[in-house]
């Protein structure tokens, strides 16, 4: 399944947030979206998933979703969005119940995704008992349970400490290497963007426009061994963004 963004523009009561964004998201490809704060990258992601409507332009999908796919466009949220009144298994079961998957069939799916995210020992734990990294693993397991065609990741590692972030990046790369998925990965962290993105879309300050699309031609699994090259790309990206990030930082939130 492919996703096409066709000249997306968006305004919130008079303020232009996004302007003329066209982009395509290929099968099995991770596209990192970076930009200074307030450039509308999270808004863009909500539009891709159909949670928000752009003022003009449209988001299109082509091609059929993979077999057994329950929810083609599936989010992973920055704040995990786990129901505190459901256990780990219950949180995953939540997204299966409406598809009539219960009992033994649900257990099978839950066991599978928990094993893939190394959570098998935590089936019955409550979210409050888990660390941030474990909570995000549960959210990833929940997303995998619906066999998404595209993962929409909204700063998924931003609420975690830097060591947990490293661990989870490795996990994501491992998951992708075993079964490639396509993803739009919104982040403000350039290291994450270059580690996980096949392409990196740099948005400008508000109103967000595509400034540049950087392609990194290096398999995800090989990247840890080539940190020096990645660091150079990261530095170039930062040089590109620095002035705008500084200007965005000085903007009033409601201006």
């Amino acid at each position, binding site marked *: 399944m492919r996703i096409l963004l066709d000249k997306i523009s968006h305004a919130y009561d008079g303020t232009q947030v996004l302007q003329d964004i066209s982009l395509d998201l290929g099968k099995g490809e991770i596209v990192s979206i970076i930009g200074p704060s307030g450039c509308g990258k999270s808004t863009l992601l909500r539009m891709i*998933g159909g*949670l928000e409507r752009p003022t003009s332009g449209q988001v299109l999908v082509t091609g059929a979703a993979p077999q057994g796919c*329950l*929810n083609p*466009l*599936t*989010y992973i*949220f920055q*704040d995990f*969005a786990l*129901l*505190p*009144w*459901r256990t780990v298994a219950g949180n995953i079961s*939540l*997204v299966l*119940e*409406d598809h009539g998957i219960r009992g033994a069939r649900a257990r099978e799916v839950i066991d599978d995704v928990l094993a893939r995210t190394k959570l098998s020992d935590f089936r019955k734990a*409550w*979210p*409050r008992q888990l660390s941030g990294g474990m909570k995000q693993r549960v959210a990833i397991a*929940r997303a995998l349970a*619906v066999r998404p065609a595209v993962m*929409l990741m909204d700063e998924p590692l931003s609420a975690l400490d830097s060591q947990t972030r490293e661990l989870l990046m490795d996990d994501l790369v491992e998951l992708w290497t075993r079964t490639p998925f396509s993803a739009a990965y919104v982040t403000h962290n350039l290291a994450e963007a270059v580690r996980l993105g096949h392409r990196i879309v740099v948005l400008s300050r508000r109103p967000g426009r595509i400034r540049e699309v950087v392609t990194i031609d290096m398999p995800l699994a090989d990247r840890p061994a080539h940190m020096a090259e990645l660091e150079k790309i990261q530095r170039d990206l930062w040089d590109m963004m620095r002035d705008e990030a500084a200007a965005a930082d000085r903007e009033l939130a409601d201006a």
Partner: protein
Amino acid sequence: MRDTKTEIRIPADAKPVPFRGGGFRQRRHPLLAPLVLAALLAIWWAGSATGVISPIAMPAPKDVIDAFRDLWTTGALWTNLSVSLYRLLVGWILGSLLGIAVGLMIGLFSQARASALPIVSALFPVPKIALLPLFIIWFGIGEGSKVATILFGTFFPTVISTYAGVDAVDRGLIRMGQSFGLRWSSIVRKIILPGALPAILSGFRISFSIAIVLLVAAEMIGAQHGIGAYILMAGSLFNLGQLFAGVILLSAIGLFGSWLIGLAERRMLDWRQ
């Protein structure tokens, strides 16, 4: 070079940093409450026995015990308690159920909020006991009017705590439900209701004590039986022993109710810790 063992020489003038943390924290003192209660009872008993406490102001503990014995032997305990509990429970349960239903509507539908919330806000502050004469005209002098008073008295606070609970549900969780394509009914049942439950249950504590207040008030105005009627009768006969017995019964009902609500909280909100 890595130094894993560092010797520190402590100078002669080194002093420990004075401790200034601690305090401002509640600890458990399980023995204190029974001790205070026993001490109060002892003072009461000694005061009455020596005549320091006038029997006109406070009954002797013995009078209260006698009143309870009378209540028990004549069967009046059960007559009064059963009618009071019936009015209280029917009124409170119906008021709470209706309150949750209307509160959910207000929380979920903006049309319901726009139309019902002003009415709720206008009627909430009216002391429901002032409406008892009206309820007597509507529902008769019997049980109906008393139950209706309690029902209306508990309905409004429940509406308010329910819709406030719905409003307080994390929007991020609702968006998550939508993003996974959950049905509207699933979102309400599995995300909004459990999310509002803590607020609904703590609203129950308030509405239950309101229900007891209204029960006694309604029974004092027009009832033959019931704890309120019993207290009123005792008061007009200056039988302080009976009056105290009635008050102790009310307190026991209140304590039992809040214990039950606490139990429900621990069971239904076990995910909170």
